[in-house]
Every structure is written in structure tokens, then in C-alpha cells.
């Protein structure tokens, strides 16, 4: 596979390490009332779609950026790639 890195352009997916669903960015608040449930759902449950899937790839043999890649799990077509840091901020994560 070729991942179109937002900074570096097309790079072979072999340079990357795959983590999984980009929802792993949305780490729950540890002080929430139902933190235990939220953490369970966060860590263990997956939409696992057959189709567009937002997922985390780490450019380990490259510039060490984490990327959020939107990829079709049926065709492997890559629909969008963004820096995970930007995606995380867009989802309201900070410190």
C-alpha cells in the first residue's frame, strides 16, 4: 500500500506501524462518573466497518508522525490522510 503522507507525499506502508481505529485518540476523562465504562468501550469495542475506516498509522521508519488515515477496508482505497496531531486537536484534545 501507498500512504500519501501529508508532509512527505506517497510513502510505502511498509515504513509504517499500524495501530488501529482512530477512535483511540478519544481517550476518556479519568474523572468521569462512568470512567470505567467509558474506558472499557474506548479500549475494547470497535465499529469495525466494512468500508471507510479512520485508523492510526505511525511512520516509524520515516518521520515518526502518527497519521490518521481514512481507508476503505474492502478495497483498501485511501480516501484521506492527516497528521494525527492535527486530528487530535480537532477533536478537542490538548494537554
Amino acid at each position, binding site marked *: *500500500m*501507498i500512504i500519501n503522507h501529508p508532509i512527505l507525499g506517497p510513502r*510505502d506502508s511498509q515504513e509504517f*506501524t499500524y*495501530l488501529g481505529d482512530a477512535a*483511540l*485518540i478519544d*481517550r*476518556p476523562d*479519568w*474523572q468521569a462518573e462512568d*470512567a*470505567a465504562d467509558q*474506558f*472499557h468501550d474506548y*479500549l475494547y469495542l470497535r465499529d469495525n466497518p466494512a468500508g471507510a475506516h479512520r485508523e*492510526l498509522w*505511525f511512520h*516509524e521508519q520515516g518521520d*515518526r*508522525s*502518527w497519521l490518521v488515515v481514512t481507508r476503505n477496508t474492502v*478495497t*483498501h*482505497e*485511501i480516501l484521506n490522510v492527516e*497528521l*494525527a*496531531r492535527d*486530528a*487530535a*486537536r480537532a477533536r478537542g*484534545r*490538548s*494537554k
Partner: protein
Amino acid sequence: MTDAVINTGAMAFRADGSNGARKGVQVNRLDGGLINGARKLGFSFDGKRYEGHEGDTLASALLANGVRLMGRSFKYHRPRGPLTSGSEEPNALVELRSGGRQEPNTRATVAELYDGLEANSQNRWPSLQHDFMAINDRFSNFLTAGFYYKTFMWPAAFWEKLYEPIIRKAAGLGSISFEDDPDAYDKGFLHCDLLVIGAGPTGLMAALTAGRAGAQVIIADEDFLLGGRLNAETFGIGDLAGSAWVEQAQAELVSMPNVRVMPRTTIIGAFDHGIYGAVERTADHVLAPEAGKPRQILWRIYSKRAMLAAGATERPIAFENNDRPGVMLAGAVRAYANRWAVTPDQTVAVFTNNDDGHRTAADLIAKGVKVTAVVDTRADAPAVEGAELFAGAQVIDTKGRLGLEWARVRLANGTTRDVPCGALAVSGGWNPNVHLTCHQRGRPAWREDIAAFVPAGDLPQNLSVAGAANGDFSTAAALRTGAEGAIAALSELGIEAKAGDLPKAEDAPVNVTPFWYVKEGKGRAWLDQQNDVTVKDVKLAHQENFRSVEHLKRYTTLGMATDQGKTSNMGGLAVMAELAGKQIPEVGTTMFRPPYTPVSFGVMAGRSVGEEFRPTRKTPSHKWAEEQGAEFVEVGQWLRAQWFPKSGETHWRQSVDREVLQTRNSVGICDVTTLGKIDVQGKDAAAFLNKLYANAFAKLAVGKVRYGLMLREDGIAYDDGTAARFAEDHFVVTTTTANAVLVYRNMEFARQCLFPDMDVQLISTTEAWAQFAVAGPNSRKLLQKVVDSEFDISNEAFPFMGCGEVTVAGGCRARLFRISFSGELAYEIAVPTRYGDAMIRKLMEAGEEFGAVPYGTEALGVMRIEKGHAAGNELNGTTSALNLGMGRMVSKKKDCIGNTLSEREGMNREDALKLVGFKPVDSSATVYAGAHLMNADGEVSAATDQGYITSAAYSPVLESSIGIGFLKNGDARKGEVIRAVNPLEGHETQVEVVSAHFVDPEGERLRG
């Protein structure tokens, strides 16, 4: 691409029509052809010596020498000759070469002849002519499709003891030598705008069009001669003979620096996003590769656009005894005649359902071969000049024990005629080579007018198909679609290519009347020649409800042969369709998966073999350790010294005991460079580490080191190490050797994905520093001799868990940490790696007066077990901080990765496993890591399992074997005697539960 490598040797004799040297024992050699009659090549088959010519394949040379019998079939061991002239060959499989180079199942039809070639037939005993296993053929009525599912079940034990060993011995095709392959293989990467797959008229025209437009082009063909069918046919292009046009096109392509021409290169698979796998056979056409040069190269081709111009494969017609040596595809017979100047026999008959078969007859007649009949299933078959035509007729049987002698023909009027022939050229029409279009699950569609599947549906991204591969069978269509395809592909890349004038070429329509198998006769008609699948087998599968194409293939093994069904699938589908009263596409399509043709293990492994399987990481003291005669052990990719034997020591335990005792009594030195070191800086560095470690880090003072435990988000401990604070905004974190990469990755995840606004910068410095542990009561004294005197490293000035920058050996920059894994007064000292070799020598020299010893990973392991320090065996991915006895370290006052989920009920059971120590009641007994723990009394079973021992060692200090491990509710059971059972090796040891801290439990030594 100025260095495009191409063997143009074959071109030199393209026009060479001389045949003076060819006759003689090559009884079936004809005139003309694209072989070099002037260059004779000697070779052997089954020990018998023959001669062929440059440009021959093994099959063409054997045919020239009158040899039709080249193999035996899989199940019935029927005698077989070549069916084809290409890589789809199912019958003529041989063992090529010998010794470590012995190569089973090589298709004689594509094995390029070289001087000294050695080949042997396979799957026969004692000889190809007299094969004992041919007795199976007599019992074929019992050995029908799937018969083995219905029998061999009684008595139950007989399957493995009797039936299966016989079957296994009889099965298989070629054999390996069991010697290591002596050849090297390479891998590489290529990039292009347009990859053209296949160098027949379509591919050549596409490459010319794209090359002239200045695009980066790669054109690859599995054959050693470019041109595809043009080499096998007599019709010309423009004013030139087909092969002459090829020569001209090739010369132009080779002259273009932007075109890479790759003969002998098979595109094996279409992978995601335009990546193609290609195997280039660089030395299979010579006796042995040059030293250092590869036999084959696996290229990963990154293409922006690709065009499949792979042509088509002819399909046979099934009829009774259609598998005798001499029964061949008509296009193959034509190729042997026109390209290789060979006829399989002096008398040939033709059996066809389309016009293509007639070409074979015409070409053979033109070459002076006697064509005894053209049998055409079509009642309106066109006339043939020079041979008798039987229109509306069928071949219903053949005869000839080890080779075809005659064919029986049912004429249109119902009578039969026996036609003498040593070869029968059969054409059932052509199947486009759609294989690569299926590699990403694209499903071909049926085209009625040519009675074949063509590419359809979702093709691999950016792949187009042209020419015969797309069902456009004429040469003119090939040239046109090749050019048009290239133009279209390049225009998508913004490259303008021009069509130019296409040369004139034959443009015959496809005249085919589908005809798949002859229904007459009680005997067997072969569909899959290699696997011996017959029409009867398909009928039986239908009768037993194995009616989908997938069930059919699996039940009968149709299409599972080394040709991957290229010559058999369509026939099987057609028979099933007819039986089911369905159209062919309703029964199913056959999909193809990579590789297009089988690929060797060697080329897929490349240089990753033997000791080079994976890179080796060496420590800074490696060379010195080698000089000391150290034994090394693999720790991940690192090689670490395991122990340092001294003369007179005959057992590793002696060395290890000595290293431990001397370290504990005086001082020992160990290279600990392999531990991961990650530099963490930034305004939020402390807050960041507070998130990553289960224990608190925010308040660690500058100049101090703290032990830290990292949890996964699921609350399981996965790594531990230390973090040293060099400044308010600067830490150096250590990880275990095994987890260095993982911890660094996880830290980046936290930094970029979880806490993107924290000001933290990370970088690995593992390799930048050579780090040595100096441990033992004399470690300070030793270091005081090495650390420059302006640095006070006394206990007061440099206390336990201190860290700082110093210089050593008169000004060399160093980092000093007062940390201990051994439990002794200990330090770790780091210098820039380039000085590591000198540093170990310096340390040893300074330690001489104390009797300093180097110690390896074994002694390190003993000492950490004596101290009850967890390592990889304890941090095994299933243990929590609680299990490790560090439950209280997990801060409840802050958010850190893993703390929420570590509170789950199942991880906090009352009888949770706890890390404790074990000492054998009988001090001469041995404790084994991996033993399971059982109560003192009661049954030994899984149900009564109390835990397990994770690590064990002989402690020379305690003069006893000791272990640490996890015991249910272990910390409340100290003093209890239980059993450590190891039924695997027949041991059972009574052990006392003790603290895991065997040596210096109060930790006084490290603070001294």
C-alpha cells in the same frame, strides 16, 4: 534509465535461417525459426545426452530430438508430454539441475536451454518409461474424485499408521535435495509512470507510444524473447515479418533512456495502489550465476499506471485419452514450428472448434510437415489447403502407449476414421490472461462472442487492459489498443502521447463455436491433466452436490495443479454448467490469486538468509568481549555477552557463579548499552512522564533518578526502567532492551495523539552512549580511579539514585547514574559510543587491583533474581502492578495510562497472583522456571494450579537453586511449603515460599 540491462543475444540470430548444423539426431528439427542454428548446446535428460541450440527451451530441444514423453501425471502416473509452449504447462515438469541447485517441477517449456543443462523426470519409479505407480491407472475406477473421503476410516489407527504414509509417499511431484541452495537472490525497487505487462504486439506498441512521449516506462515479459505470439506466428506487421518488427521495436525501446526493457521478468502479482511484484530471472539461463551475482531478483515496481498486455492462453478440448504425449495445444504446435523450428512429429493432425486451428495446419504444411487431418467441430468449417478436412467431426479417442500413434475421429456422417498422427494439435479457443485483474478480487465477465471471460468489474487501481488479454485477439487490435491504452493512461498523468501511424497487421475476426468436451466414449477425458481430473470426476461431483465452482475445485482438485488452472478451469466450468443446465457464468467464474506463476522461496527471501536474516546489533564492547572469548546470546537483534569463560572453566555455571560472586564480593562490569534510552525534553516533560508512568514523576528533583513502571491502557504492566532528571525540562528515560522500540512508539502516540498540546520533544539516544554497569562493593573505588578527580562521587556527594554529568579518563564527557539492578552498590557510566571500546578496557584496567570481572547476561539474570527484580519473564503481558507487588505504586491521584482499567474486579481478586520467591526445601534440588505451583497436598492438576515460576537460577550466594514467580495470594503465604511441579521433564520439588528479595532485602548495600 541508461543502464537498462537486456540480453540482446537472442536478436543476433533472429534472422538466421541457416539450418546446416541442425539436422542429424534432431529428427524433428525444421527450417527457419528464431534459434541459433550455429550454436549447439549439449544437455541431458534422464542421463541421456542430447543436443539443441541457443534459443531452444528444454521442451523444444527434446521435441527436436524426437522425445515426446517428458513426465507423469500426479495420480494415475499417466505418461505425458508437453501440452503447451509456455509457463502454463501442466505436464512436462522436470527436476532441473542437481545438488543444492536441484529445482523440482520446472516447466520444460520455459526452461531456457544452456550448455550443460541437466534435467531429470520426476514422480516416477524406476524410470519414466516404466513407472511402477502407473498401476494406479488400472484402478482409476476406484480412485475417483473424493474417494478418499469415503474410506480409509477403519480401523481408526490405520489412517496415520498405514494409509496416510503410503499416500504421502506416493504423492507430490518433484523432490528437493535437502542441500542448502548455494545461489544468492536480490530484491530491488523500481518506479515508473507506466508499467507494461507483456511484450507482445500490444505491450510493445504501448511501450513505444509511451516511451516516445518521454514517460518513464517499464516493459516486462516472462519470456526471454520479446514479441509474444508474433514469434510464434507467420503473419507480418507492415512490410516486416512479425519477428523483424519486434526486433525493430525492441531496438527503439532499448535506445530510449526512459524505457527499461525487462525480458525474463514475470509480473507475479498486482498489489495495492499500483505496486507490482516482478521476478527477473537473471541467471536461470546459464549453468550457474557469476560469483556474487543473484540468480533471480524480486522487483517491487511502484507504477503510477499499469497496462496488462499479457495476451491469451489457449484451452484444450476434452476427449477420451486426450492426454497422450503428442496431444498438444494447436498454438503451441505452431509456436514450436515457427519459433523453434521443431515439429513434435512428422505427421500431425489438428482438432479445433475455431479458425485458429487452421493456422496450425497451414503453417505446418508450409514447413513440410504432413498434416493428416483437420478435424473441425464446426459443420461450416472453412476449407484447408493441403490437408483433409473433417467438418462437423470430433476426435473421440486416441491410441499409443508412451506417445500418440493415431486418433479416432467420429465424422459428421456418424462413421469413424482412425487418423495416424504422432501429434494432435488441439484448439478450443483462447482465454484472455485476466489473472492480474483478479488479484484484487476483480471478477471477470463472460463474453459470449469469443466464449471467454474478459476483465471486468473492479480492476486494480490504475490498471488498464489491452489486446488479447482484453479479448481483442487480432494483431491489428493489439497494436491499436496498446497505443490507445498508453495514451489514455499517460493523459491521466498529464503526459501527452501521440498515436502515430499504426502499421498494418492481420485483423481476422474470432470465429469460434464453443465446444468443450466430447461426450462420446466410456473412457476418461482429461480436464486437469496434471491432477488427473476427468469429465467423469466433474459428473460425480455434480451428482454429489459439489456444484459451485468452489466446491467443484475443492472436491475434484480441478485447477489446483501447478498451472493454477490455466489450462483446466474453463473446461471444468463448462462441463459443470452443462450438467447443471446453466450458463457458464452462472456456475461461477474462476478467480486467480497471486502469484501469476509460482515463485521461489529464494527470491522472496532475497538476502535475508542465514546470518543475514535480520540485522545484528553489536554493543560497544563487542570486540573486546570477543577477545575475552565471551559467549554471546541474541537479545532481540542485539548480541550480548552471556558469560566470559576463564581458562579451566568447563561448564558455563562455573563462569557465571564466579562472575556473580566476584561482583557481589568486589566489583563486576557489564555492558548495558542495549537498554533503550529516550531523551525527553520540553516545558511539559515532567507532566508528560507523569501520564506515562504509573507512579508519580512530577516532583522528581533535578539530579535524581527514579524507577518507573509503565502500564498499558488495560492496566497490565509492560515495561519498567528509570527516568533521570537532568534539568527541569530534561529527562532521560530508560526502557528494557526488548521494549525500546515499543516504548518510544507509545510515547510518540501519547505525545501526538493524546496530549498534542504538551510541549514535549522525544528522541532515542540508545546508540549514542556506551553504558556500563559497575556493580559491587568496590564499584565506587573503581570509578573514582576513572572519573576525573574534580567530580566528587562519594556517597554523600553522589547518593543512591543520583545522576550527573562528569568527565572520565582525563576529560572524556560521561554521564553517571547511581542505580542498581544487581542490588549492590552500583553505578552506570556512559560515554560517547566511540569511546566505549576504550572505556571497557579502561574500566577493566582500573579494576584490576579489585579483581574486577566482566559479567554477562547470565550473571545479570542471577543477580536480579536474587534481588527479586522483575524482568521480561515477569512482565509477560498478563501481569499487573498488583501481581508484581507494586500495586501501591499506581497513583490514584493522577491520570496515567492504565490506572482506570487496572481497577477492574478481575484484576483485583483476593487470590490474585503475587510475585514471591521460592527456595527448595532440599537445597540440592533444582527449581525450574516454567514449573507450576501446587499446594503441599492434594491432586496435581490444572484445577488445583496455584501459579507458576517465572525465573529461576542457581544462586552462588545462597548456594541454592532459587526462583521467583507468581503464586495465588502469594504474599500472605510466606513460609508455606508447596510443590513446584514440572511433569514435562518429570520433576517435582518441594519449595518454601519466601520473599522475592533473597539478597539484602533491606537494600542496605545499594545505599552504602
